[in-house]
């Protein structure tokens, strides 16, 4: 710990009982970006799930919007230590998208417009734990927060909820993504504080 500077508090933060260890509450919605923000028009947007055998399952924007929609309200936890409680989104459950996808894969690599990627076990995308969301707090998801559509996997650190998501590769072997190849944890459970490799 460094030398305390009297009077300095930093961002308002509170440790609440419903926060994972090391996290603080933020009223804002900080924008994190590792590169330029992609601008993806909806008429060319597509979402592709590709299986380990190479079979591709595609949805255009209109096809995705025609699927059953859900409105999850969830807590989100960023590895940079902010958490935001009770965020409301709208989108399609990954259960819906994976229904009918023929696969024996154990892992998923989500990849995005702009080149970002992140890996997670396929089972973490199932059973009502993950969504492809296009609406935040009642409005279209802004590009800086991952619009037109992003992944939402709130039980893992938020870097797993890939912004500008374009598709998911289903794989037999785990393939580390953008941050996972640079020191971040393969799984990223905030309640076990799995921030970095080896945590």
């Amino acid at each position, binding site marked *: 710990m460094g030398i305390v500077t009297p009077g300095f508090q930093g961002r308002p933060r509170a440790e609440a009982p419903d926060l994972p260890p090391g996290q603080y509450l933020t009223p804002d919605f*900080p*924008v*994190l*970006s*590792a*590169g*330029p*923000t992609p601008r993806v028009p909806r008429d060319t947007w597509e979402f592709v799930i590709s299986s380990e055998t190479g079979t591709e399952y595609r949805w255009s924007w209109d096809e995705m919007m025609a699927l059953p929609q859900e409105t999850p309200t969830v807590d989100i936890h960023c*590895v*940079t230590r902010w958490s935001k409680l009770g965020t409301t989104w709208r989108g399609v459950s990954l259960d819906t998208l994976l229904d009918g996808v023929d696969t024996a894969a154990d892992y998923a690599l989500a990849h995005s417009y702009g*080149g970002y990627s992140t890996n997670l076990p396929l089972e973490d995308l199932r059973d009502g734990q993950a969504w492809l969301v296009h609406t935040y707090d009642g409005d279209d998801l802004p590009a800086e927060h991952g619009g037109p559509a992003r992944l939402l996997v709130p039980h893992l650190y938020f*870097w797993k909820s890939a912004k500008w998501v374009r598709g998911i590769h289903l794989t037999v072997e785990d393939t580390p993504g953008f*941050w996972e*190849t*640079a*020191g*971040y944890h393969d799984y990223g459970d905030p309640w076990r504080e799995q*921030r*970095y490799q080896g945590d």
Partner: protein
Amino acid sequence: MTALPYVDGNMLDGPLGEVFAVDLSTATARCAHCGTTGPVAGLRVYSHAPGLVGRCPTCVEVMVRLVRAPDRAWLDLRGTTFLQIPIP
């Protein structure tokens, strides 16, 4: 004036100074993607992120990533073909 979310490679000097014994602030780097060679100080650095991401100013591909944990650092230079460091 649009708020662009990146800054100059100059800002890498402090964080990289924790990793390297030599001063990289006047180093030159070659982009593994497009071959552009230029000062590290001229990279576009995205710092509002879980780590620092330095991108080529020409092709915007990632040249350097630095992740800092409290007790460890990861430096990924796969997007950089070489670093040329002046040693006076």
